[in-house]
Structure formats: C-alpha cells, structure tokens
C-alpha cells in the first residue's frame, strides 16, 4: 500500500528543504507529501479494488488518496508555497491529482486512461493532468506558482470561509467536465482551468491555516497581555516566582526585618537619652533660674517681698543721725539674718542696700550710694521679724545706741514687707568667673 505513495510522495519530500520559522532547517515531510498519506491509507484499499484492471494503478491509488480528503487534495498544492515546487510538483501532482469526482466516474470507467486524465484535470483543479497531456513538465510548476501568487492574497482578503468558495470550485468543475471530452481541447484551456481549481484549493488551505495561525497569534497576544497585567499588579509579582526564589526573598525580608528592628531599638534608645538629657537641661535651667533669682535678691537686682520689719528712725532737731549709726544698724540687721534691705528717707527714692552700699554724712542728711536721704529714715528688711527685733534690742545694741543719741527708733514687725528699690547690676571689670 504504502509503496506507491512513498514513491510518489517521497520525491517531493526529499527535495523539500525549507526554512523553519526560526531557522534554516530541514523540513521533514513537506506538508504536501506527508499529509495525504494517512488519508490515503484508509481509502487506498478501495481505490485499489476499483482500479485493479486499468493500467494506471498508481494513479488510482493516488486518486483514492486525494479523494479521501479535500484537505489532502489541497495539501499537495501547498508545495509551491514553500518554494519547492519545480522539482517536486510533477511527480506529486500525478500522484495526488484526481479529486473526489474523479473516483466515481473515472475509476469505474477506467478504460481510457487518456480520457481519465482529461476528465480528471479540470475537476482536480490541480491541473496536473493537463500538464501530462500537454507534456510540459516545465509548464506545470510555473502555473502552480502563478496560481499561488494569485490565490494567496485573495484567500487572505476573503478570510476563512471555505464553504463559500466551494460552490465556485464545483462550478468550475462542471465547466471543466465538458471540455474534458477531448484531451486535445483540454490542452489549450488547461492553462486557465487548473488555475481556478488551484486557487480554490489554495484558498481553502490558506484560510484554514491562516485561521489557525491567527488563532495562535491571538492566543499569544492574550497570554502576553495577561502576563503583562499579572506583572503589573503589585502582589502578583510574587505569584509568578518559583518556590526557591520565594524562600530567598523571604530570607532577605527576614534579615532586613532584623536589621530594621535593631535600628529601631537603637533609635529608641537614643531618643530616650535625648529626652532624659532634655529633662536634665530643663532641670538645670530651672535651677539656674532659681539661683539667678536668689542671687538677684542678694545683689539687689530684683524686687522682693516677704515677712520682715520696718524700722523708722527719727533724729532729734539739731542733732542729726550720723552715717555710723546706719552702718551699725545695717550690720546688725544682716547679722540677724535679714536677706534684703532698703532704706528710704523723707526725700529721695529708697535705696537698695547691698554689699557695696556705703553711707556717708551729707548736708541735709545721709548719702547712701550717692543718693542723699533726709530724716526721718525708714529701713525695710526681709527676714524673721522676731529675730530681727530681738537683735535690734540687744542691750548695747542698735536701739540703745540710737537712743543715746536722743533719736527715736521704732521697729514694726510685719507679715509682709516689700522691697521695691533695685540696683542695676554692674559688670565686673576685672573679676572673671573661674571655670
């Protein structure tokens, strides 16, 4: 069974070297040669049975094969596509030429081989039989090539509808049937007829195949877009990774987390330090402010209030109080723990008494730090009133001395006294703090 076919189909196969899609490769079994085989295999036996008598047994085989499948008949025509045709076509054509129509009438009649050929030619649409009578081996391929050229674009433009074309092809067959009466007549016409048939065949083939190609391209595009989409989606980034990659990524994330955690604890520690330091500095500032206030009271740069005494001194006429007495009184007050002192007179503003305050006698009164005060004087002191009072009344003390001078002294203990006079601080010219 396979022998004739192999023979027939073998020739094109060998000759068929084509380019693979990607690279130059040897193409095994060009579609034209290989395709018909299986189909033919089924029908061959029948074909053989029918056509045992007649001489052209190989043709009968081939006819059967061709008849089996319209597609298969189509396939051989494909050879030209690949550019193999010239060498291949003649043999292949003979083998495959007769399509279905040929079988029924031609194979049964089977007597005039020539007629068979003639009849088969138009029907087959391949035009090979025509070639045979014409005896032009060279002409065949050319025509085929032309047919391709013509059919290709048409088929594409039409899209995929083999059925639609079919009637036209049949019509062509019918027409072809008439001229088939004489082989001689067929010759001249053959040039056109076969082309039409071939066109149909090529169209069918192209439409189906291009449909498959288009389907594949569509699938590719779909998959491509889907993949792009999937990669775009943020989370899906990991969905496409394989397990080992995921494990690695997980490890990296873990180590990174560790790093970040240690960083966090570092930073928290630093923050704690800073806040505590801040608290310390606040305390320091508070301390400093408090100290400044205390020193300010001592230095007389701030006003002060608190419990204390107010001492009033009235001198006798014609016997003014001397500055000594005031100095003694101030010393006694300091000794009794007075913390802030000021002295006022009947004229002039009260003067704050500080460490550097001096008293001198002056016309019309006493000069305190250069401010002349007139009697009566009042000395205000902040401190424990009772202690001060007692200290002043010590025997031989301030009160006694002043009374010896025939002046009057009065000590008023008060819950709150206010010292309003302040002294502008004077920056030391020479002394500097030791660090």
């Amino acid at each position, binding site marked *: 069974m396979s022998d004739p076919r192999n023979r027939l189909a073998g020739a094109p196969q060998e000759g068929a070297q*084509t*380019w*693979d*899609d*990607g*690279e130059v490769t040897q*193409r095994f079994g060009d*579609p034209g040669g290989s395709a018909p085989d299986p189909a033919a295999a089924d029908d061959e036996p029948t074909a053989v049975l029918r056509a045992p008598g007649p001489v052209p047994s190989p043709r009968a085989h081939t006819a059967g094969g061709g008849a089996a499948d319209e597609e298969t008949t189509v396939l051989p025509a*494909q050879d030209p*596509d*690949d*550019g193999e045709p010239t060498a291949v076509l003649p043999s292949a054509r003979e083998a495959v030429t007769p399509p279905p129509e040929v079988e029924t009438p031609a194979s049964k009649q089977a007597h005039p081989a020539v007629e068979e050929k003639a009849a088969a030619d138009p029907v087959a649409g391949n035009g090979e039989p025509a070639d045979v009578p014409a005896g032009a081996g060279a002409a065949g391929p050319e025509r085929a090539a032309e047919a391709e050229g013509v059919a290709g674009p048409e088929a*594409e433009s039409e*899209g995929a509808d083999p059925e639609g074309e079919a009637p036209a092809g049949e019509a062509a067959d019918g027409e072809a049937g008439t001229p088939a009466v004489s082989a001689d007549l067929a010759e001249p016409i053959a040039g056109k007829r076969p082309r039409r048939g071939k066109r149909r065949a090529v169209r069918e083939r*192209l439409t189906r*195949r*291009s*449909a*498959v*190609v*288009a*389907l*594949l*391209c*569509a*699938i*590719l*595009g*779909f*998959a*491509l*877009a*889907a*993949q*792009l*989409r*999937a990669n775009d989606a943020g989370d899906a980034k990991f*969905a*496409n*990774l*394989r*397990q*080992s*990659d995921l494990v690695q990524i997980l490890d990296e994330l873990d180590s990174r987390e560790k790093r970040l955690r240690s960083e966090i604890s570092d930073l928290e520690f630093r923050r704690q330090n800073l806040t505590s330091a801040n608290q310390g500095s606040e305390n320091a500032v508070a301390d400093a402010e408090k100290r400044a206030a205390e020193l300010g009271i001592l230095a007389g740069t701030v006003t002060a209030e608190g419990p204390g005494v107010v001492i009033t001194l009235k001198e006798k006429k014609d016997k003014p109080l001397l500055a000594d007495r005031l100095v003694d009184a101030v010393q006694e007050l300091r000794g009794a723990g007075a913390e802030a002192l000021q002295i006022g007179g009947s004229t002039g503003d009260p003067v704050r008494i500080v460490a550097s305050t001096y008293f001198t006698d002056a016309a019309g009164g006493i000069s305190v730090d250069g401010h002349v005060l007139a009697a009566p004087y009042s000395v205000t002191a902040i401190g424990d009133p009772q202690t001060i009072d007692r200290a002043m009344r010590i025997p031989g003390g301030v009160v006694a001395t002043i009374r010896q001078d025939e002046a009057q002294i009065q000590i008023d203990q008060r819950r709150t006294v206010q010292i309003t006079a302040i002294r502008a601080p004077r920056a030391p010219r020479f002394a500097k703090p030791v660090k």
Partner: protein
Amino acid sequence: MIAAIALIAGIAAGLLLEPTIPTGLQPYLPIAVVAALDAVFGAVRARLDGIFDDKVFVVSFVSNVLVAGLIVYLGDKLGVGGQLSTGVVVVLGVRIFGNVAAIRRHVFRA
C-alpha cells in the same frame, strides 16, 4: 495580515478582560510567551524570506511553547527551575535577536 490583527485583538482582549492566570500555569506562562514570540519572529522572518509556511509555523509555535514549558517544569522538579528558565530565556532571546537581525536586513537592507 490576519495574524497581526489577531495578535492585536488578542492583546486587546487580554488587557480588557484582565484574566486571572491559573496558579499552575503561572511559572510557565512567561516562558511560553517568550517561546511563542520566538516562533512569531521566526515566522515574520520566513515571510520576508518568502518561505513562510503555516504548518511549520503552527508546529514550531506549539512545540516551542511545549518544550519551553517542559524544560521549566523539569527544572522545577530538579530544583534548578530558576537557572533553567533563565537559560531558556537566554536561548530564545538569542534566537529572537537573530531573527530580528534578519528581518532588519530585509526591511532596511542593512
């Protein structure tokens, strides 16, 4: 022509429908896409060379995709999936470059 239209239609459909890739296919789809791209570029080149054949295209397309997927699958099973898929991508990339170079020569004559 039809193929190009179909390709564009497929891309549009993929973008519009936002399909969810089955979990089982996720590792293989990128490789399959690259393999198919290789087949497509080869087809374009063959077309320019005038030797395009639909059947060869279909067969090479399908086989490319299947073989690429198979290699990656095997690699996954052997624990070298990442490396193998990289290798596949490299090989296909080289082929694509070769085909693009041929196409370029056809189109620009340079």
